């Protein structure tokens, strides 16, 4: 019995894409509104956790698999540090925000003072947000997934021992 009731499952399925798009919104707007890679990542990971709790860890493990998530995590971390290293190569030093003000893709300087916010500002910040976002989603979800799976496994073993 690793699924919850039908109502919960249906609602989870309905809510999941909304939470996810909201989390991605938070990631993408990290440099404009409260939020950022980590917060958005935590939200998306929670969305995945919602699926996990509604459908059970076996189902989720079959769907996603912990290996693939690990790879995603590595990729996110790699992108993050690669962006920092690009700062060394294109800018002057490690972690240089080499895109800020370069009027390339994300390189505009916003109007100083209160404004409504443009997406294409902030230099490497949005990119870093995405990198951290990928990493955090994968990381936090792997933690929950693996722990849930292990607890499931142990429960099963305990049941076998007793019965």
């Amino acid at each position, binding site marked *: 019995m690793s699924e919850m009731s039908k109502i919960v499952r249906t609602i989870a399925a309905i809510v999941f894409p909304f939470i996810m798009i909201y989390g991605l919104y938070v990631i993408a707007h990290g440099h404009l*509104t*409260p939020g*950022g890679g*980590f917060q958005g990542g935590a939200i998306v990971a929670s969305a995945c956790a919602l699926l996990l709790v509604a459908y059970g860890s076996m189902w989720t493990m079959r769907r996603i698999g912990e290996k693939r998530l690990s790879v995603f995590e590595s990729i996110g971390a790699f992108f993050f540090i690669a962006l920092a290293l690009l700062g060394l190569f294109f800018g002057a030093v490690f972690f240089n925000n080499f895109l800020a003000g370069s009027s390339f893709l994300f390189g505009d300087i916003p109007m100083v003072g*209160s404004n409504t*916010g443009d997406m294409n500002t902030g230099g490497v910040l949005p990119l870093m947000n995405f990198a951290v976002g990928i990493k955090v989603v994968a990381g936090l979800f792997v*933690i929950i997934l693996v*722990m849930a799976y292990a*607890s499931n496994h142990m429960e099963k073993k305990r049941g076998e021992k007793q019965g």
Partner: protein
Amino acid sequence: MIFNIPFIAVAALIIIGLYAVIFRKNLIKTVIGITIIESGVNLFLITLGYREGGVPPIYTNLPEDVSIPRGMVLPVPQALTLTSIVIGVAVLALMLSLVIHIYRVYGTLDVRRIRRLRE
């Protein structure tokens, strides 16, 4: 004016957490204690950066009448707290996985019985 109540709350949280770690016998209680200490420290950092009547240091859709920079709360403690929260989750996850393993091997969560390593 309100007599540093948040700071005292921080001290109280740290004390409660330490109490849990030192006096409670259950490992999960120990973990909860550490979480509480961590919450206290996070609250402390944020409280340090608060300026009375300030707004968040975000320029998007900012009300026009905010004086810069004195009308904004300090951004650095918030950044530090973000880091600290992530660290908290990481530590918590690791500790609880260890707790699960300990229970698997020892069959108990009592601190006084989990001491094969001593002397």
